[in-house]
């Protein structure tokens, strides 16, 4: 099982991990995750009165012998988790060395691999100003190649409209679960409504913001013609030391604003610089944040 996204050694390390969701979701298939559904799991949940048609196998006969009344034992169903990988493919993601999109692809692939390996359902969708072609949530390790292929073929195009695409996804998605958003979150229109739509819906949201160092420390000064890579707008200006310092402060303020927002919405947030090897992001930072077990 070879991939251009990462090597076999890394994949072996990923096999020992599983994704954690803080919310409890209703699954589709039986698995080892606790769900809201009462079912045939191993963990006792409650009693209820017997009604006609209930399965006799769950009647607690010991209670019946003492009370002469029929009660059914109710167990928590253990089902699978649906993992939604939302990858930003707007043109701003091609900035950086390596490009932020490559970095996002690898992290998404790694997380998808962990999910599929843990028998969870894993779906993926790219987005820019519109939702891209989705890969519906599927289960089973045989889906790994399809998932990798999906990520490898992601085009980098369009501008960013986080509010619209995330709201649409929250509305359109039939299945809740863990929504992992991989984006640089650089959207002039904002990100709040989109993330709110996910968080207030059926999703446990993990936002991984990808940042290239050149965005925080621009390696240029002097007379420039800045080009917005998404809108192709141009702006002539002369960049000097003082302006760069103001810009850096502005960027840090923006990042802190995102972090504060996520904390208030109970949205998990991780900022990843492309200078950090993505293996470390997966194996160390995500584990440290208790997103992986």
């Amino acid at each position, binding site marked *: 099982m070879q991939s251009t996204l990462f090597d076999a050694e890394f994949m072996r390390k990923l096999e020992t991990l599983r994704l954690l969701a803080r919310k409890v979701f209703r699954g589709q298939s039986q698995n080892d995750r606790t769900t809201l559904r009462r079912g045939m799991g191993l963990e006792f949940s409650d009693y209820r009165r017997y009604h006609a048609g209930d399965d006799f196998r769950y009647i607690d006969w010991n209670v019946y012998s003492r009370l002469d009344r029929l009660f059914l034992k109710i167990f928590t169903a253990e089902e699978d988790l649906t993992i939604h990988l939302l990858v930003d493919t707007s043109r*701003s993601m091609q900035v950086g060395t390596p490009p932020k999109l490559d970095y996002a692809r690898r992290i998404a692939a790694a997380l998808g691999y962990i999910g599929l390996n843990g028998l969870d359902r894993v779906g993926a969708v790219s987005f820019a100003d519109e939702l891209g072609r989705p890969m519906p949530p599927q289960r089973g390790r045989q889906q790994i190649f399809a998932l990798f292929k999906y990520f490898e073929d992601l085009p980098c195009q369009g501008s960013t409209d986080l509010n619209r695409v995330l709201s649409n996804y929250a509305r359109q998605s039939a299945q809740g679960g863990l929504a992992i958003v991989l984006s640089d979150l*650089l959207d*002039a229109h904002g990100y709040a409504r989109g993330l709110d739509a996910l968080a207030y819906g059926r999703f446990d949201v993990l936002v991984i913001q990808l940042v*290239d160092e050149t965005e925080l420390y621009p390696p240029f000064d*002097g*007379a420039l*013609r*800045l080009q917005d890579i998404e809108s192709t707008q141009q702006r002539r*200006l002369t960049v000097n030391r003082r*302006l760069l310092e103001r810009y850096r402060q502005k960027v840090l303020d923006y990042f802190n604003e995102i972090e504060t927002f996520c904390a208030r919405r109970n949205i998990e947030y991780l900022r990843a610089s492309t200078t950090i090897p993505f293996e470390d992001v997966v194996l160390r930072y995500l584990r440290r944040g208790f997103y992986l077990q």
Partner: protein
Amino acid sequence: MTWLNPAALAFLGFIPVVLLLHTLRHRRRDVQVSTFFLWESVLREAHGSLGWQRLVQNLPLLFQILLIIVLTAALANPVLTRAVTDNKDIILVLDVSASMQTRTSQGSRFTQAQQRALEVLQNLPSGRQMALITAGRQPQVVEFFNADKDVLREAIMRQQPTDASGNMREALILALSFTQGSGTHEVVAIGDGAYGPLHGMDAQRSPIRHMQVTGGEKNVGITRMALRKVQDAAETYDMLLAVKNFSSQPVQVPLQVTAVLRKPLLERSVALQPGQEEVIVATLPGPLKGTVQAEVLIDDDFPLDNRAYGVVATPTQTWVLLVGESNYFLETLLTSLPGLLVNVAPQVSEDTLPRLLEANQLIIFNGVQPPPLRRGHFLLLNTAPQDQRLVTEGTVQRPQVLDWQRQHPLLQFVDLTALHVEEALVVRPETGAQSLVDATWTSLLSVIDEPPLRVVMLAFDLMRSDLPLRVAFPVLMSNLLRWLHPPQEEMSAGHVQAGMPHTIFFDKPVSHITVQDPQGKQRDYSVTGNPWTFADAQKVGTYILRTGEAKHYLAVNLLDAAESDINPSDQLASFAPGVKPAAPQHAGVVETPLWLYVLLGAVVVLLGEGYVWCKDF
């Protein structure tokens, strides 16, 4: 404002070059960024407006363009032109008399006068000329008409007040002579108004503008000083000293007379009312030799006249042999002259003459024929020598004086105007002799000056003329004795007012003389004649003139009551602008150069650009 060097404006052509360089240097690089909204937010917060942002971004360029403009302006030599209606050449008369040393609260009067002179120069219309005349004891043209203000400014600043009396009248007359009666010249006199009489100037044709400097009014000064040895008493001297209060308040003046090494000779205190002069005659104990200094110990505004100097020299003794007829006037005069000892003889033969020459420095033949004269000093009165150089041809009645050589040492200060002579010998000086007083048909005074023989011949009888009754007689005799028999001691002395020439007689040929001034500076002079006139006694004090081993002390003093009177003269109004100035001929302009200020502006711009560069706007 006008540009004196408009060709320099071509340097403005550098502006397009700078713009081109700026454009090339600031060719903008294309840079792709992930998003704009953060940059725009930063720019909004940093500059508020795009216009300001552009301005700030282009500050270095603006400074560079401004620098080119300012430097070009400086090179173009801008001048601020101011139209003036008075467009005349100026003859500036600057008072350099001793009273200009008067101290005021704003420096000396002369310092103020220099400033006023510079103001006049500054306002001199462009293209007009100015001449500078100093009014010292003798007027001096320092700078003839010149339009170069730098030269004129340097000439004004070079001047210093002298210790001598001033003669503003002569200076103004000289200045007026330059105007040639035209209306295109203006005489500007700058001084303290403490001048002598100013009458007789043609101020109607060329107005004189007087600019008076003021300040300083308290002065007490020594106006006269004389020293002489008492003839009848050994080693005793008489001193005459006059002290005058020129202030408006009564003063008590301590007075001190000291000899060499400040040895006190006299101490006295004199009370003087305003304008009062006190004459002090005192006897000083001897022996005295060298400089005697009189001093009023008072701190006033004009300290120059607080000291006066006198010199005492060893008196010389001159033996004179009077041969011939008795002459009351001559004998009285000879016996009254100090240091002169007179012998009388009725006749002198050729044989006895050599012996008599050894005993007498001067032999006077009065009306008797002298023997042949080959060496020695002789005065012949109404008689002729047996010499081919002075030929006599009878007599002439009532000869009229036609002219006399005023510059000859024998006739200095001698006025022979309307001299009456009843009868005189007809004398025709030949080669080797010289006529000093020419009269009708004869020479009244002739000399033979061929060392070792010196003969002075007066061609008439003193008793048959009015010469003995005139002031000229003792002056002539004094000059004659000094010329025929100069002081032969190692030390002689003289007195002179500052700025006045002093004549020295030598008894033997001298080629050069060394003069030490009161400050101790020495200077060598070439001696071109005998007597020799020393004209550089400009400073108050004692000069020492050395010729070999001999020393001649010269006491130089101000001793001028008119000059010590530092208050403005009452006659000042007589030549102050009492006439209307001539109608302006042409409107002129005064140019004030501005290049220095523009250059300072360039420095400021340069500093501004440096600041912008350091701050990295």
